[in-house]
């Protein structure tokens, strides 16, 4: 029987292998299976180092939850990596803000027409059935 850790490793390896194939295609070169396994294994071990460091950073900040700032600290050694991660982080927070706005609008709208539009749901169900047939 597979343990949880083994399943995680398999999922990890699958994605790492796919990313390697992408690079191979870009560069017009191929990777031996062992080379892909090596890249995957190195990255897996790197992930462990990441986790340990992140935990320490959070602890240093007297928190039990790792946040975005901790990850930025992890990326500090390479300027280009730090820039890339900071940019991603900004995108994420912008995305979250938009998501929140949408939710606000949605729930406000829902409250407004809850009583008048109750027939909406059954219509949707009928549509689904016809798609399946």
């Amino acid at each position, binding site marked *: 029987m597979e343990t949880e850790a083994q399943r995680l490793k398999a999922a990890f390896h699958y994605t790492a292998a796919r990313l390697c194939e992408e690079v191979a295609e870009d560069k017009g070169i191929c990777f031996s299976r062992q080379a892909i396994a090596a890249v995957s294994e190195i990255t897996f071990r790197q992930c462990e180092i990441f986790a340990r460091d*992140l935990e320490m950073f959070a602890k240093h900040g007297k928190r039990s939850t790792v946040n975005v700032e901790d990850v930025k600290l992890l990326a500090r050694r390479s300027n280009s990596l730090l820039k890339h991660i900071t940019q991603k982080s900004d995108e994420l927070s912008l995305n979250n803000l938009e998501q929140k706005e949408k939710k606000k609008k949605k729930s406000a709208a829902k409250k407004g027409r809850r009583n008048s539009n109750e027939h909406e749901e059954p219509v949707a169900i009928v549509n689904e059935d016809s798609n399946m047939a």
Partner: protein
Amino acid sequence: METREECAGGFKKETVNKLLQLHFKDDKTRASGDAVLLVAEMLKVFVREAAARGARQAQTEDLTRVEVEHIEKILPQLNSQCFECCPILVMMNL
């Protein structure tokens, strides 16, 4: 509930979260959603960087196939330039 494909083609948020959880020493340690997504991005960059450098190494040797030894050769670069020092070479039994 959350079906946002933040890391299309990269590592899944759930996988990375569980991996982090696995390696945290303290069971109480958690990671915020955005932090997990950023770690997933870091891992993706790491894989691509390792693969690209391995490919370049093979190409400088006029080969069209990347072998383990090419990856071994570029390991020190990965550790010193981008990421923290780590005795990966010693740990790898390849």
